[in-house]
């Protein structure tokens, strides 16, 4: 019997290389991710995890193969924009928050892109900030935050427009062990609470093992292993 859950990510024989094909990164990879799954792309640095996440997020386009994210082909600019605005949230290893802006101003950025009403945005910011414990930091500038607080802010920003799919690229990579565990726990809790599908790129086995599925990425190839 087939899985009744909706397919969020469908990749079939996707290939990606850089420098005009001289640097192959992904070799005909196939992947299906369904609603509510927490999937770990686990592998060493340079294995192709981030490239796959960029393809799924429409930050880059594949050379070959079929790709559909939330039912949209990210090869067209229009679809990429729709995906980024309505369906996807990104968390990066380096938080990628805008320096000099306050936490609240940073969290407002995705709402500005879609002209979301201010009041609604403010309520959503308070809700998310409360859930990750940074509501007392909303008026602070990014440079005044700790690494963990910055990453929690980045998670809130990714979830602001209630995406269906969260793509997290080594979200704990720049944090110490304890803070990393806290941030991962928060990410997992929030994803479950908000019923968001998560694809997480990580090189840390402990975080991969805490996911529903582990997909090992090695030399640009995928290989599903039991959690």
């Amino acid at each position: 019997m087939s899985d009744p859950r909706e397919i969020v990510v469908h990749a079939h024989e996707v290939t990606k290389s850089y420098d005009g094909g001289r640097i192959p990164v992904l070799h005909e990879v196939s992947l299906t991710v369904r609603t509510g799954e927490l999937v770990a792309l686990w592998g060493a640095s340079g294995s192709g995890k981030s490239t796959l996440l960029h393809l799924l997020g429409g930050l880059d386009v594949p050379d070959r193969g079929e790709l559909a994210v939330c039912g949209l082909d990210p090869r067209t600019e229009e679809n990429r924009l729709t995906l980024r605005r309505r369906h996807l949230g990104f968390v990066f290893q380096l938080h990628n928050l805008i320096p000099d802006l306050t936490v609240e101003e940073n969290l407002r950025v995705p709402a500005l892109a879609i002209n979301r009403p201010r009041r609604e945005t403010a309520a959503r910011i308070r809700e998310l900030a409360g859930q990750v414990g940074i509501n007392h930091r909303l008026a602070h500038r990014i440079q005044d935050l700790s690494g963990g607080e910055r990453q929690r802010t980045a998670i809130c920003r990714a979830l602001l427009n209630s995406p269906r799919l969260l793509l997290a690229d080594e979200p704990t990579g720049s944090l110490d062990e304890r803070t990393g565990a806290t941030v991962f726990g928060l990410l997992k809790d929030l994803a479950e609470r908000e019923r968001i599908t998560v694809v997480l790129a990580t090189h840390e086995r402990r975080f991969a093992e805490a996911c529903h599925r582990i997909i090992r990425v090695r030399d640009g190839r995928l290989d599903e292993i039991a959690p």
Partner: protein
Amino acid sequence: MQVLSLVFTNLIRHRWRAMIGTAGIAFGVAAMLTILAIITGAIGMFQRILASDSHYLVFERNVSDLFFSSVTREQVAAIRARPEVEAAHPVLFGIVSAPDHPVITCFGIEATDPRLAKAEWRAGRREEFGVREGEIYLGSRAAEFLGARGGDTLAIGRGSFRVGGVFKTENGFEDGGVFLPLTEAQKFFHRGDAASVVTVKLRDERRGAEFKGGLEAAQPGVIALENREFNSTYNSFKILNFTGWAVGVCAFCLGGLSVANTMLLSVFTRIREIAVLRVCGFSSRQVAVLIFGEAAVVAAGGLVVGFGLGFALLAVLERVPQFHGYVQANVEPLVLLGIVGTAFVTAGGGAIYPARFASRIEPAEAMRYE
């Protein structure tokens, strides 16, 4: 568009850069305002000299400048004899010098000239204008900078004149000039019986075409132009106006380059940030709007500062005694509108490349690059 709220945030974050861009536009605005206001004021003053209580201006045909125009006594008489004419006043323009003041405008006029009636006499009497030989009359600003009073003797050119009177006129050129009775001026400038122009007041303004046609047919050596027609065709006015705008636009181009430089620097240092905006759902268009918005705010700031600077400078220039009252700034709404338009066009032009560059930043590439 909520994206625009980021414009102010970004400018405040990069306030020094924003201030440099604003200063570039402000200097352009101030330069353009000052130059054009002075030129327009000067043209206005000259027009008022020519149009003093008259409808038509008559001068020698095909002459490059009114200073070289000669309208003879017979031609003046012919003008006065025309049935459409109520009054005709010949004026001879010349330049005289006094110790320490090498260029002073001299007006040769008749005692019946309306500008004498309109003037506020500070010394001497209008009725005595031209009665005694060897007398010169001074505009009040000229009297001030020449340090002369009624009854004093004044060295003008190679001659010496007694100051017969001092009067104040509203026109800066006239007020900073000296007046001689027409015949004295003709002798002084060796112009025979010629005047430079004749200002003509008609009995009925509607008979202008009849006057013009009749006069030009009878006196082919002269041309009669309605005042507004003269203002729009006189080459010197055109050249002055063009020069003013050209210098102003050049000043603005420098301002535009400063905006371009500032915006480009701003974009280059924000590549990663712009990539993040794209990841968060900003479209290329929204990124471009952001950059153009920043340029527009810089232009608006430059306009406010520039107008402040320009008006302050004009106020100072109008009060500098060395300018002999020749600076009478005239700020026309059209000039203000032109400056506002030029500021936004310049800032917008300066932002085209930065906006294009910013809107083409590919997020993944920008992140890898960083």
